[in-house]
């Protein structure tokens, strides 16, 4: 499990920021040394055993650690769960997302889960019960100060939890949650070997079978965290409820239905499932992208499409080990019909907006409605797209098109009033026609999204915008030329880009330094005389990505470090603000000068944290979506 240095640094700082110095020191030690037992952690971190145990406890609570018990010594060995640690930075976004789709009650529960880490259901219920009791206790609150409770009853809490579990945003902890993927794989390997292949694997056929069995075993482990969801589904409550509450999700579950939810097993321990959260965040990002490239209304429609399609997608990137073998499933990508989408679109939305209105005769129906039943094969984005897709359709379609046109012309007025499904279809067709391929029209009135090529496209767009901001539009031009045409000499580059030689050389040098372009030397003969050699420019997109990822982490680290420096600088003011008699009424209690400094610090903190979040947007796109 290799982690780049910047990421390790960032995760440690994040732990420091959220849980304090002690866990951070333990975490840093684990990052540096790998898998360690408590004894060794004490040794390396120069902390005493009690402190280490406390630190580990906090980390364990928040699922930031993996551990294995060594069979020989009986000692537990700990290692970092860096994915989970990194996801801490996304807490704000996840809460916002939950707030949008499950209402404030959902967000409140989610927030508590974030704060508490993994929690037993009974503990969570008890905590809420205490809150409710306190609020209901009339004596404790003087008339108007009574806080508005988001969760008003245990039943509501239960219902909210059920919703979140159904959506896979929350899942259950089981014995293997605390083992790293590698560890689990090792175990499954061993089990499979013991059970099915006691005499070893012989021949290719057995090998394939072995791999299948391992994948199956791994999937089983993965499915374990979904036990609660399955139980809920078995109870049938979900489908019943869905019938009743169509289009009502955003308002939180209506109260009269709460009884329908089965009570959750109070012994179950639940936690936030980041994998699914990232899927939701990806959808949001895509919607934002559409609103930039096509328009808000289309983006809204797209949001609905994604909502339907991602219901059963548990993770953005399928695991190569577990998911590669289910090819049959992969072929049957989930699709959604126009009517299904229409059912979800709010009635207050006017679908006619957002698309230009032109007479029907200037639209080619056949081209717009073209069906693409199969997902495109892996294509490198921008690699001469123009040439690849002209094959046969040109001839075939033009004839039928003419017919369509004449029919149209004879018919109605230039801009006919369309029915609502038709209006919706217009948006979907526009999405299907778009360059990045937001949706694919895979069957008559059926739509699907090919996430892999789409995200690849989106990544390239992000890279482009970063290049444009670093090296200007000309830099972008050169990169895209190189990406489309492959390796090029300077002469060719010059004629394609219509740039002056001097400008071109300067730009290329700039890009070389920024790591977006590279050169290759091709000698003409054995002597490899540099004067005679040909120098070719090229772009290595993957390298650019990894460079950017490292830079993102480093920048986030810098932001947090600057924040720490500021915190040290304003130490006096901050400690003043922490005092119980000052807290909450800083403005009145502090002197003007101190308050100004305090306010400035808060502003800086907000700015820096917001910046970290924004960089995470880029980072998530580059490596997680």
């Amino acid at each position: 499990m290799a982690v780049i240095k910047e990421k390790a640094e960032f995760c440690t700082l994040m732990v420091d920021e959220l849980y304090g110095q002690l866990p951070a020191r333990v975490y840093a030690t684990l990052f540096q040394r790998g898998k360690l037992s408590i004894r060794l952690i004490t040794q390396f971190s120069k902390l005493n055993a009690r402190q280490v145990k406390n630190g580990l406890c906090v980390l364990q609570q928040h699922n930031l650690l993996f551990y294995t018990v060594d069979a020989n010594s009986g000692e537990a060995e700990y290692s970092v769960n860096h994915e989970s640690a990194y996801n801490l930075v996304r807490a704000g976004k996840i809460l916002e997302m939950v707030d949008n789709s499950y209402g404030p009650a959902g967000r409140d529960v989610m927030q508590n889960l974030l704060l508490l880490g993994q929690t037993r259901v009974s503990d969570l219920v008890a905590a809420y019960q205490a809150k409710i009791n306190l609020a209901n206790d009339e004596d404790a609150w003087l008339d108007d100060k009574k806080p508005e409770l988001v969760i008003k009853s245990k039943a509501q809490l239960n219902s909210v939890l059920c919703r979140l579990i159904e959506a896979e945003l929350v899942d259950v902890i089981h014995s293997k949650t605390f083992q790293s993927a590698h560890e689990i794989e090792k175990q499954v390997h061993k089990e499979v070997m013991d059970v099915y292949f006691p005499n070893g694997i012989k021949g290719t056929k057995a090998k394939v079978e072995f791999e299948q069995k391992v994948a199956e075993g791994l999937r089983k482990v993965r499915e374990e965290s979904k036990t609660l969801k399955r139980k809920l589904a078995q109870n049938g409550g979900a489908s019943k409820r869905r019938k009743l509450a169509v289009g009502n999700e955003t308002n939180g579950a209506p109260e009269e239905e709460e009884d329908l939810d089965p009570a959750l097993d109070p012994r179950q321990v639940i936690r936030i499932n980041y994998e699914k959260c990232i899927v939701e965040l990806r959808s949001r990002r895509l919607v934002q992208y559409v609103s930039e490239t096509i328009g808000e209304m289309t983006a809204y429609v797209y949001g609905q499409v994604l909502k339907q399609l991602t219901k059963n997608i548990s993770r953005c990137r399928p695991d190569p080990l577990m998911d590669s073998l289910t090819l049959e499933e992969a072929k049957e990508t989930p699709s959604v019909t126009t009517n299904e989408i229409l059912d979800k679109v709010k009635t207050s939305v006017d679908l006619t907006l957002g698309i230009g209105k032109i007479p029907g005769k200037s639209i080619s129906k056949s081209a717009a409605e073209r069906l693409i039943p199969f997902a495109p094969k892996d294509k490198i984005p921008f690699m001469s797209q123009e040439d690849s897709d002209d094959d046969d359709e040109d001839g075939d379609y033009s004839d039928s098109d003419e017919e369509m046109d004449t029919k149209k012309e004879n018919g109605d007025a230039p801009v006919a009033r369309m029915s609502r499904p038709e209006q919706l279809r217009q948006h979907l067709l526009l999405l299907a026609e778009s360059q990045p391929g937001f949706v694919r029209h895979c069957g008559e009135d059926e739509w699907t999204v090919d996430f892999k090529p789409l995200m690849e496209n989106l990544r390239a767009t992000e890279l482009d915008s970063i290049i444009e901001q670093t090296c200007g539009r000309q830099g972008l031009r050169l990169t895209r030329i190189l990406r489309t045409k492959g390796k090029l000499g300077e002469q060719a580059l010059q004629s394609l880009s219509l740039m002056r030689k001097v400008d071109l050389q300067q730009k290329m040098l700039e890009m070389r330094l920024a790591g977006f372009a590279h050169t290759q030397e091709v000698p003409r003969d054995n002597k490899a005389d540099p004067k005679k050699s040909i120098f070719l420019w090229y772009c290595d997109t993957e390298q650019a990505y990894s460079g950017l990822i490292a830079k993102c982490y480093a920048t986030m680290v810098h932001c947090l470090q600057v924040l720490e420096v500021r915190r040290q600088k304003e130490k006096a003011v901050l400690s003043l603000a922490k005092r119980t008699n000052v807290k909450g009424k800083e403005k009145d209690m502090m002197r003007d000068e101190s308050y100004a400094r305090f306010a400035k610090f808060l502003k800086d903190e907000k700015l820096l944290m917001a910046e970290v979040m924004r960089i995470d947007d880029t980072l998530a796109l580059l490596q997680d979506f």
Partner: protein
Amino acid sequence: MADRDKLQILKDALYEAARDHGSDQRLFSQRDLLDMHVIPQDNLVLLIQVIQILCDEKLFVGNTTASGLSWRWRSREDAKKYTSLPNSDLMMVYAMVDEAGADGIWNRTIKNKLNMADSLMKQCIKYLEQKGYIASMKNVEHPNKKMYIKANLRPSDRATGGPWFTEGELDTAFINELQEIVFDFIKQKSTYTSLGGAVGTQGGGGGGAQREKVPKKGVVQGTILHSEDAKGTKRSAGEISNDDTAAASAPTTTTAKKMKPAKPQLLPLPAGYKSYPTVSDIAKFIHHAGITNNTTLSEADIQQLVDVLYYDGLVEPVKVNGRKGYRVTRIPKQDTRTCNQRRLDHDPSKGGIITSFMGVEPSASGLMEAPCGRCPVYDMCEEGGPVSPSNCVYFRQWLDGDEVKEQVISI
């Protein structure tokens, strides 16, 4: 005597026949010449004699190809130039320049090929230049080489660099202007301008005035301007009828709730739109607009221009029924004004150097907003090093604003 007359007649006949059978680039083999049936009884000896005369008079040029000897004809005027030259040296030099054609020839190449003394060659070139037979030229690919070309030829595109070069230099100002025009044209033709939500016209406006036009059939939903001639040219103020604005404001109230349509906005056209401008549309437009008076731009040139726009991420190709049109990218973010208008409206005193008035600013990314994204010393920045986040000047500027600047410098 009769023989010579006969040869003369045959010579003329063969020359005319060859001219009828192809351009001055076509190579005729012996068989081809015989098949013209000018030479009686396919008499080879006679043919050789005739060809010899033609070659002597520089009306035929001999070539050796893989299949043997062949000839092409040369116009009488050109031939006359050869015959008027006083000596064979001049003739050889002239032949070299002539053969190089529109690409021109480097004087060193002439010298090396003819193995001629430098002074003699210079003499020859001087003579030919004075006579107006050849002219010196400049080649973009090798700007330092002294090149010569036949005086009545225009240097080839390879030599001049095509229409994008003026006097051997890439004319970036011209290219940029033209790009803006092409971009505006594509923008206008590939988007729909929504004015206050419901009423719109296709086209972003070509002149100083906001363009509106009432649809002919009284449908107040939007219209499309198909007039080929009006694009890009200024429209007179009289063309804007006053009742448009009244019509525009009437039906918008109910529909325009979500889109906040305070100002005109560009909208994408429905999928399958057939009239996205193609390269030939753009070429036609440029031609009719008469923007490029002294240079004619071919479709290939325009294609080159559009390709650059594509590489810049400003336009994207759309294929509808095999017809490849172009549309602008990120339509909702596009400015409705033309590039030129934007330039005029731009107030330089407000700061912000705008390098291009085409298209949209790149979408902001978090990485670039932080000081580190543009930091020149990013690579050596590390806690504990000479440059570190804790003493970072850029971060201080970023967080505290400009007032700290002086302080920073004084440290």
